């Protein structure tokens, strides 16, 4: 019975994705239409032109038509997979995105994995030794880590591994082979992981502490259950729910980090593309990227909500309290 509820819930959420994506695209469109001087100025970008060229450009990019028509044209294109062409490079936006998205996904995956693998155990360990010097060190380190912007760490690492230690390659993606690409992502991945690790650690620790104080853990101990079972089945499983709740936040944080990390390490991913597009006021690229990001986040949130519902039986049940 629970699975059927879950299924229905998933479908409902997927359907909600559509209006959300739609809304995002409208907002972005409106926003970019606010560019001072109009999109024309961005297109031209100070290059010498004649009146004729300006007219031609306007016609080509439909900039002379009312806003709604422009939006409609753009939307039609999007639904067919055509995001338009970059103002700057005239490349198809879709192509740019497609060639770069793989790298960004890998980078995020590496960052998230490191964050989970380090954050959860360390957080649990710190909670078990609450008040000890180890706990305080870990908490201190995590406060530091969460206040540290990724681009500062990135630069610091660049210097450290460029000047002093020769452990990792610094820039780019290497010779193109998959293995070399992954190797080039290690250092950026670590930088990406720092802030999420701190967050996951903080939440795991706080919720483990919360659990430890709970009566059901005390009662489990009172019944003489093995300590390992008490920690894992009673403590950790319950404690991980808040972590899941924060997963949405973590996904968003990772995306933001992507932009800076790709930029500093010269990685050809979506983040770097955004920076370039922003510096050049390349509107079609910006629009396309924001739409992709919007869908990415909605899907991520959906996955989080589903796993949340799957883990916590209280969520899917509708109980009428007596």
């Amino acid at each position: 019975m629970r699975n059927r509820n879950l299924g229905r819930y998933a479908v409902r959420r997927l359907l909600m994705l559509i209006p959300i994506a739609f809304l995002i695209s409208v907002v972005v469109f409106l926003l970019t239409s606010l560019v001072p001087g109009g999109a024309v100025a961005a297109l031209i970008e100070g290059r010498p032109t004649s009146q004729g060229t300006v007219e031609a450009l306007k016609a080509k990019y439909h900039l002379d038509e009312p806003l709604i028509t422009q939006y409609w044209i753009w939307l039609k294109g999007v639904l067919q997979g055509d995001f338009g062409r970059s103002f700057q490079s005239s490349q198809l936006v879709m192509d740019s995105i497609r060639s770069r998205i793989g790298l960004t996904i890998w980078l995020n995956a590496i960052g998230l994995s490191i964050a989970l693998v380090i954050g959860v155990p360390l957080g649990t360990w710190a909670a078990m030794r609450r008040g000890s010097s180890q706990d305080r060190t870990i908490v201190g380190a995590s406060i530091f880590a969460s206040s540290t912007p990724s681009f500062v760490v990135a630069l610091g690492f660049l210097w450290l591994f460029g000047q002093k230690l020769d452990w990792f390659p610094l820039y780019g993606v290497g010779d193109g082979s998959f293995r070399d690409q992954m190797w080039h992502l290690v250092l950026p991945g670590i930088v990406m992981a720092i802030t999420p690790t701190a967050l996951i650690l903080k939440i795991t620790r706080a919720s483990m502490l919360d659990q430890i104080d709970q009566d059901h853990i005390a009662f489990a101990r009172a019944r003489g259950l093995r300590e390992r079972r008490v920690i894992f089945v009673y403590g950790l499983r319950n404690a991980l729910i808040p972590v899941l709740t924060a997963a949405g936040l973590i996904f968003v944080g990772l995306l933001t980090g992507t932009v800076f990390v790709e930029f500093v390490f010269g990685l050809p991913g979506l983040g770097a593309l955004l920076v370039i597009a922003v510096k050049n006021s390349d509107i079609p690229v910006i629009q396309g990227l924001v739409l992709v990001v919007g869908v990415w986040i909605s899907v991520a949130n959906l996955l989080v909500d589903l796993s949340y519902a799957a883990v916590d039986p209280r969520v899917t049940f509708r109980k009428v309290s007596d």
Partner: protein
Amino acid sequence: MTVHTKDQPVSLARRVVRSRPPFSIMVAFSFVAAVLVISVVGQALAGSANIQDLASVANPASGDHWLGTDRLGRDVLARVFAGTRTAVIGPLIIASSGLVLSSIFGIAAGYIGGGLDSTIMRTVDFFIALPGLLVAIVAVSVLGGGYGMAIIVLSIFNVQGDIRIVRGAAIEQKGLPYIEALRSLGVKRLRIMWRHMLPNVSPVLVADFAIDFALSLVALAGLSFLGLGSQPGTPEWGGMLAVNQAILFSNPLASLAPGFAIILLAVSVNLIGDWLYDKYTAPDRVRN
């Protein structure tokens, strides 16, 4: 009858002054104080931040220039000092607007509920669903960039989370009997919100202020790192990091020093915020 006297709770200010904060907090306070002082008298201390000396570009630390020189031969220490202004003013404005707006809208939404609550929360939820900094990057760049624009855009994004948190705290208070007691005693709604709800959610406001400050410090630095902050040439920590990335191996301090300044200020403010929150929510209920 022996009346059993217990300790009287005191105001936050007195509690802060009375208790001795741990060493790390004292350090944090000193650092923040130092930054504030420097933002006022920095020029006098380190000299001008704008004198270019193209002959001595990217020099490492020396007697003349304690942190070396940057890409255009300017004294790094002077620029870091000058950068304290933008590092403090922007986040202060953002955090303050967050405080004021979230008190008003958060408490109103939480206490009054109903249609007002749904309207407010729908806007808030919409913004929160957006990847804040990313959209800020797009928005600021599209709207022309600049320090002021960055502050405005970040303020708009920042206040949403605050409203949600304050609303949550207000709803929690609303469920407590004392609020109902006030209602049944005929106390006016506005007075309940201003004189009762607000003081009781203030620990949350204080903690939020500190977190907002630290987060917006980092966000502003990030925006100026991408070239979306102040005019190039204005000493701003984030911008300095970007500009001096090229000379990272000649004089790493040119970019790492402002980087450390960002980290230290953010950490100090976070620590102070956490500590104040703990002090403020010290046990109010004394059960036997």
